């Protein structure tokens, strides 16, 4: 099963087990979505997988209204990048509903995120750090096939707006024979790899680059601990701090733009809550501060790769 199939199956399970669930997005119905995340679902659940006009603002507004009435809509953005035109309804309508009125807002907004070769500035963005800035939403970033499945199901079941950042690079590349039975809830990070030399805190597709970097350093005798945040809002700060307590060194790695975002937040938390655990300056690695380039020559330099991460780790270990 691929990461994408896990998402599709989670949709099917959610639709099957909860009559309040429906899916709304451009081309999600008969076509099954541009990536096929909703393939075949219309046949099985007629009327519950609906094509939307190209109206991201109204799509989110409609989902909020449906949630008020007790439904649990899943909104598919065609690409995370296009959620920018639904931004206001996400951060000011959905995210404020509960705090203002005590009315829960159980909506899930799926953002096909992250870079893939040749996709360019507007089909590649990672916006988890954007939405996390705003009160009233949860933001999750599954990095494994099992998490894609279980976290989507949990997202749909939660009584709050969840921004579900699924990584397009993992859609087809990432496969699992079966779903990992160890299910962690949203809000808990996972230690994916243990080590005592340094902690790498990451999430989403960058997990796999970090694991590759960790393997590179293994041959040099370094044990790199890799923490998969899984949720970036809330951040499981305890698990991060516990890891830094073991290693004394921190590298945060994310694919989004470098200013602010998850990596800055991790460094801020660890430096303020875990200052005395640190044996060296905490560091971070993000994409460059330019739009995401189209040509792969530029793109591979723009975002962190296993090699760049390994290099950053070597610098960190030398401190």
């Amino acid at each position, binding site marked *: 099963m691929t990461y994408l199939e896990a998402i599709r199956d989670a949709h099917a399970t959610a639709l099957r087990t909860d009559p309040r669930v429906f899916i709304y997005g451009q081309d999600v119905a008969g076509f099954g979505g541009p990536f096929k995340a909703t393939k075949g679902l219309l046949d099985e659940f007629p009327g519950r997988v609906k094509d939307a006009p190209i109206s991201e603002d*109204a799509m989110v*507004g*409609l989902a909020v*209204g*449906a949630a008020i009435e007790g439904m649990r809509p899943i909104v598919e953005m065609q690409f995370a990048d296009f959620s920018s035109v639904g931004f206001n*309804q996400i951060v000011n*309508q959905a995210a404020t509903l509960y705090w203002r009125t005590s009315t829960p807002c159980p909506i899930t907004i799926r953002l096909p995120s992250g870079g893939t070769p040749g996709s360019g500035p507007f089909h590649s963005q990672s916006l988890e750090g954007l939405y996390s800035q705003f009160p009233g939403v*949860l933001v999750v970033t599954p990095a494994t096939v099992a998490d894609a499945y279980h976290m989507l199901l949990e997202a749909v079941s*939660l009584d709050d707006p969840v921004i579900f950042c699924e990584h397009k690079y993992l859609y087809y590349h990432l496969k699992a024979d079966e779903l990992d039975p160890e299910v962690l809830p949203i*809000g808990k990070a996972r230690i994916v790899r243990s080590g005592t030399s340094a902690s790498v805190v990451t999430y989403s597709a960058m997990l796999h680059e970090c694991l590759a970097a960790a393997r590179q350093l293994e041959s040099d005798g370094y044990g790199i601990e890799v923490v998969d945040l899984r949720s970036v809002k809330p951040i499981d700060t305890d698990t991060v701090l516990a890891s830094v307590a073991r290693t004394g060194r921190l590298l945060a790695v994310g694919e989004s733009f470098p200013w602010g975002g998850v990596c800055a937040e991790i460094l801020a938390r660890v430096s303020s809550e875990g200052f005395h655990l640190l044996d060296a300056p905490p560091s971070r690695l993000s994409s460059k501060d330019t739009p995401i380039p189209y040509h792969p020559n530029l793109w591979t330099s723009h975002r962190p790769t296993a090699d760049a991460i390994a290099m950053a780790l070597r610098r960190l270990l030398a401190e």
Partner: protein
Amino acid sequence: MVRPCARAAVSYRRSINVSSVQQLTDSLSVSDKKRDKVLSCYQFMLMARMMEEKLTSLYRAGGRIVGGVYCGKGQEAFSAAMGLHLMRGTDVFGPLIRDQAGRLAFGEPVLQAFQTYFGTVRGPMRGRDGNVHRGEPREGIPAMISHLGAMISVVCGMLLARRMQGKTGFVGATSIGDGGTSTGSFHEAVNMAAVEKLPLVLAVANNQFAYSTPNTSQFACDSLVDRAIGYGVAGFEVDATDLVSCIEGFEKAIANARAGEGPQMVVGSLLRLSGHGEHDDAAYVPDSLKQSAVGRDCIQVAQDRIQNLGWMDGAALAKMEEACRKEIELCVEQACSEALPDPYATDWSAISNAHLTDTYSLES
């Protein structure tokens, strides 16, 4: 959470209070349905106007009300007529800033306006949001956010959900101003409603200005009702200074929507007779416009008609006014007695899953 306390204080459903309705009914023949509607609306209009006058004077006096006060002066007929044709419990009503009269007609208690303007914890917004942003979403009244146009799609979603749940016979009405029609949100939502053939009634209150901006800088079509055909929805135009015209328009539009005929757009022309908010003297409104037909005060027009037709005399009208005044005084008193929010007793979490609150972020 619906706080029943808020409603217990003053019970309100299409009436100012039980006694005043009683008085009215006594003095009328019940056979004339139009008369009934006119008089019902008139009560809500009057009550709304008087409430807002009270709020304005409290605002001017200072102390109680923090932030602005926004009035629907001149828009009461249009708003009340919309609210009157809706059924609380069955229908959805998404009011905007100038819908005090419609809120009353839909059954919002008088008390809630004062609770919200004062920010009391027993009010529907508990001091978290204020003035005209109040609502009780699960009672069919979404609480507007400021971003113009953003509520229309929310109402669409409420309607779509009800349809998916197998409900029938419901409609949803919501308002937008002439300025609000320029937002992308307006367009997306109206188009979406049309595609889904939702029972949406959209009241477009063209009060000639968006804050200081006149229609000429806002749109270039002859009438905003010309937008209807481009969405494939029905369009109505009413003289919003004339209560009877408003009632006829909304009666038809809401009946059509209820009958499954899809979205209905009702455009009303009027003049905003107050400032944008009470801080604004609206010096930019030309006298010529004030003196034109669109500048008529719908309450005066309605009152003249009611008196000319002999439906109520000066004494009955004065009685009604007195009843409103009493009710308002009661509500102000009640709201004044309610506790204001205590930051230490407030749970500072923006999500309902408290255990998922990102506590490390709570620094202040």
